[in-house]
């Protein structure tokens, strides 16, 4: 089995805010990230799939196809958007767009397409918020 990882980047703005908390509590927990005017990051997304290379083509999965899936399912929705205001899974305070939650949301966006295609399975979605911080989701609870 070979693990194949594809990288992509997108830029988006967000802020952290829990509607059930007071302003003071939000500022205490989230600090600068609680600025309601938002701020932005250049995110790097890494998508890892695993499988046995096809005996004829030598591919685990067609990289161009995987690139297109990432672009359609994630970049087209997240890139140059305000995550809290414009992305359905985070809008109307449904979910705070932390790096952790973005990793889970990106997994949920990509996984059905990979499962439907068959041959390889999604094993990891990693999101870098900055060069120093990343969150990784490997499926499951």
């Amino acid at each position: 089995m070979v693990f194949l990882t594809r990288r992509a980047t997108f830029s988006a703005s967000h802020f952290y805010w829990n509607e059930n908390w007071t302003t003071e509590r939000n500022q205490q927990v989230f600090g600068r990230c609680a600025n309601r005017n938002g701020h932005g990051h250049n995110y790097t997304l890494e998508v890892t799939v695993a499988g046995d290379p096809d005996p004829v083509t030598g591919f685990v999965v067609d990289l161009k196809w995987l690139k297109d899936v990432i672009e359609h399912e994630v970049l087209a929705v997240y890139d140059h958007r305000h995550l809290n205001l414009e992305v359905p899974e985070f809008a109307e305070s449904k979910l705070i767009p932390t790096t952790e939650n973005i990793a889970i949301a990106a997994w949920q966006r990509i996984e059905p397409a990979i499962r439907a295609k068959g041959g390889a399975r999604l094993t990891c979605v990693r999101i870098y918020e900055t060069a120093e911080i990343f969150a990784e989701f490997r499926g499951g609870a």
Partner: protein
Amino acid sequence: MLSASHRLHADLLSPEENQAAYGKCNNPHGHGHNYVVEVLVGGPVDAETGMVVNLATLDEVVRKRVVDRFDHTNLNLDPIFANSVPTTENLCRAAFGLLKDAMPAGELEYVRVEETENNYFEYRGE
């Protein structure tokens, strides 16, 4: 790092099927990459040296077995790819096979080959 050329072409497929499967990677004249190879070795820390493995020795093994073999070559012409297409998946498995029994100490955990800054492949031997 090693720089090599390859052409993705499966003899079992028709020209049209090869084009559909590999796109521009099927160019008959080939193309090249600067591959970055990462080798991860696991093992106990030696009580006397404080090392899992001597890095200079490891460097030499990787250079002799993998880099010298593939650097500035056409991968399609290497006998190791006589019966397989030199995709980076297969290069990764080939490098693992060449290194598996040659570790100066510790166990080879995985070989990772980065084809471009946007994709990499990892093989853990099973």
